[in-house]
């Protein structure tokens, strides 16, 4: 769902790209294509301008020199950045997809027959350059929109980049996780580190690297500093700088906040199916009445402009898309461990077994369910005596704050209205990273990632 929304957003924002911006029309495979129909652009520019005018008054109060236009946190998260406010992409980008055999001779069930190994993406320069590893956020792969955006911007600034899927991404759970149970920051970091070594061994003959850097967004940001800590012992990369973008301070707290968005939908989280269908019906009616044909940005912004969904409903949609992505994680992990959580223990699923019922079950399970019924019991068995509170505390930055304070190589970029953080947690980040903390006034969770100031900040940080 989120992927789809993002994809639509991408297309839409391309249409919004104004001629004055001077777009490069060169071919670059992973970057969306541009249309240059000036009439259309003019019309879209007008629509976009109207959107700005019609924004709630709060927006005008926020005349703070920061040009990212969408004030609402959930709305920003869903809509992302309008294309005319993004950095121009590079003329061309050299890309290679890596398929890594991280755990040799791993047994993969038939149901995952299409999983041929861990997929990472390398963007490479023809000259000696620093290499940045990027870790994707919850449920995202090596070519999700956010990570490709970061990769593209860093590539343009002269870096080699390797993008890594999140340890919560099914492809990672199946082919690169030792336990196949994601969620423990220390173990996930060890899995990630092995993947990075593996990827590096695969490309080191082909590219010339001067230094190593590390970054990640959302959960990937939090994981990045745990990977950096592991690197202090293993010393393979000696990362010069590590950037967290919209990270969670504590994994449990953040996911609880996201889950909280569903508490406000009619009937609560248990009625997530009815909620989805209601929202869909609303959208269908909107589409039927309007004069839209294509499913693109224009449509999405029109939905936004018309205030079809309330702020609370937008929050519900964010919560729902999170559930859809965590459903993939829960199912993959359960199948790989034969955990008997959603799939009967010992059932062998074939490549063509219907999975609709499992999907339905997984979507209805909250992270709290997963945590209490699956994740925590799994680690309790591994580490006898571990209390629930101790485990929760281990899933956050506090557990390694001594290390984080000891070095100036860390930095964080986030937003004041990122709903995965409490105000106290934002203060904590400021305290922890001091000058290296950048908090933008709005953008929700990653909504402003592609905004040009934000990208410039990311590039500037690694300089």
């Amino acid at each position, binding site marked *: 769902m989120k992927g789809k929304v993002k994809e639509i957003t991408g297309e839409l924002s391309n249409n919004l790209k104004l001629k004055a911006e001077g777009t490069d029309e060169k071919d670059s495979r992973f970057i969306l294509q541009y249309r240059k129909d000036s009439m259309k652009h003019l019309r879209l520019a007008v629509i976009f301008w109207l959107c700005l005018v019609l924004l709630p008054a709060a927006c005008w109060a926020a005349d703070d020199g920061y040009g990212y236009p969408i004030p609402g946190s959930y709305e920003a998260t869903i809509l992302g950045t309008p294309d005319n406010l993004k950095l121009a992409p590079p003329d061309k980008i050299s890309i290679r997809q890596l398929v890594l055999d991280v755990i040799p001779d791993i047994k993969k069930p038939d149901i995952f027959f*299409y999983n041929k190994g861990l997929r990472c993406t390398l963007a490479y320069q023809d000259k000696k350059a620093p290499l940045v590893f990027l870790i994707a956020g919850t449920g995202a792969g090596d070519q999700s929109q956010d990570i490709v955006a970061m990769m593209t911007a860093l590539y343009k600034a002269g870096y080699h980049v390797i993008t890594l899927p999140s340890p919560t991404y099914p492809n990672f759970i199946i082919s690169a996780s030792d336990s196949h149970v994601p969620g423990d920051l220390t173990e996930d970091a060890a899995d990630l580190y092995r993947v990075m070594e593996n990827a590096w061994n695969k490309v080191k003959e082909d590219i010339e690297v001067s230094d190593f850097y590390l970054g990640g967004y959302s959960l990937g940001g939090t994981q990045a500093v745990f990977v950096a800590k592991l690197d202090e012992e293993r010393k393979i990369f000696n990362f010069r700088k590590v950037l967290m973008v919209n990270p969670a301070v504590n994994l449990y707290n953040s996911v609880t906040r996201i889950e909280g968005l569903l508490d406000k939908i009619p009937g609560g989280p248990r009625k997530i*199916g*009815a909620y989805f269908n209601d929202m869909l019906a609303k959208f269908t009616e909107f589409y039927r009445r309007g004069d839209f044909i294509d499913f693109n940005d224009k449509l999405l912004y029109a939905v936004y402009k018309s205030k079809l969904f309330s702020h609370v409903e937008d929050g519900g949609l964010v919560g729902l898309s999170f559930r859809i992505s965590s459903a993939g994680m829960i199912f993959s992990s359960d199948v790989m461990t034969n955990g*008997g959580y*959603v799939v*009967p223990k*010992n059932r062998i699923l074939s490549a*063509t077994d219907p999975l609709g019922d499992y999907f*339905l*079950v997984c979507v209805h399970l909250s992270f709290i369910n997963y945590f209490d019924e699956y994740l925590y019991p799994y680690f309790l068995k591994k580490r006898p005596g571990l209390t629930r509170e101790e485990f929760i505390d281990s899933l956050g930055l506090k557990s390694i704050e001594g290390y984080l304070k000891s070095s100036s190589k860390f930095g964080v970029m986030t937003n004041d209205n990122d709903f995965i953080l409490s105000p106290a947690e934002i203060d904590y980040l400021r305290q922890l990273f001091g000058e290296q903390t950048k908090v933008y006034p709005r953008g929700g969770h990653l909504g402003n990632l592609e905004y040009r100031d934000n990208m410039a900040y990311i590039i500037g940080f690694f300089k």
Partner: protein
Amino acid sequence: MSSAICRVCSVVVALYLVLSLSGCATTTTAKFTSEVPAMHSVSEFSDDERVVDIADPWERFNLNMYNFNYHFDRYFFLPVVSGYEFITPTLIQKGVTNFFSNIGEVRTFYNSLFQLKGKKALITFGRFVTNSTIGIGGLFDPATSFGLEAQSEDFGQTLGYWGVDSGPYLVVPVLGPNTLRSTGGFAVDAGIRYAIVGTIDPFENVENGNVILIGISTMEAIDMRHKQKFRYYESGYPFEYYMVRFLYNKKSELLLMK
């Protein structure tokens, strides 16, 4: 004599049934003794509506076909398309895409007429004339920059317009997600095109005209896959089939409103 045959037949049938049923029974018991029910099952959530759920009576067949298409893509279709993309300059690829889109205007044109959509038919006619002439036989698309935006109609949509039910979801070999109606529509459009080509007979006086036609169709198939960014199982999402099924059906439903 015939009754003897009948009796033999019924014995064979009975035997077959007994054998197959007992076979079933043994395998199922074997399965069930070792299986332990999961902590959460679907019955627990029966008080809520189902999500992204589309009627799919042919699900087994469709899942098989979905997987077939994955393999067909992986080992045949996509390598061919990559080869094409590798040897052909981008500008020519665009020209090829425009050329086949221009031929496709004919389909949109008569289907717009079938659905009494005069404006769409006119725009499409205008596009076809403009692109066939100024656009040099459809290699370029000047019509779009003149404000004539591409429309799309096919016979499946025409059937839908006149109230024919979409029928069950159907994953077609090579072509992928469809419904029974859209598959039938595709066949009709192909038939109409065959008839048109036969009537005009563009390669009437050319030696091996049929070979050229086959070449053009092959090129069209390659161009079709080249334009389509979708890759089976690329999302890595275990429930991709269900998401695709939902999005395909929802999109068709919405497009039918226009």
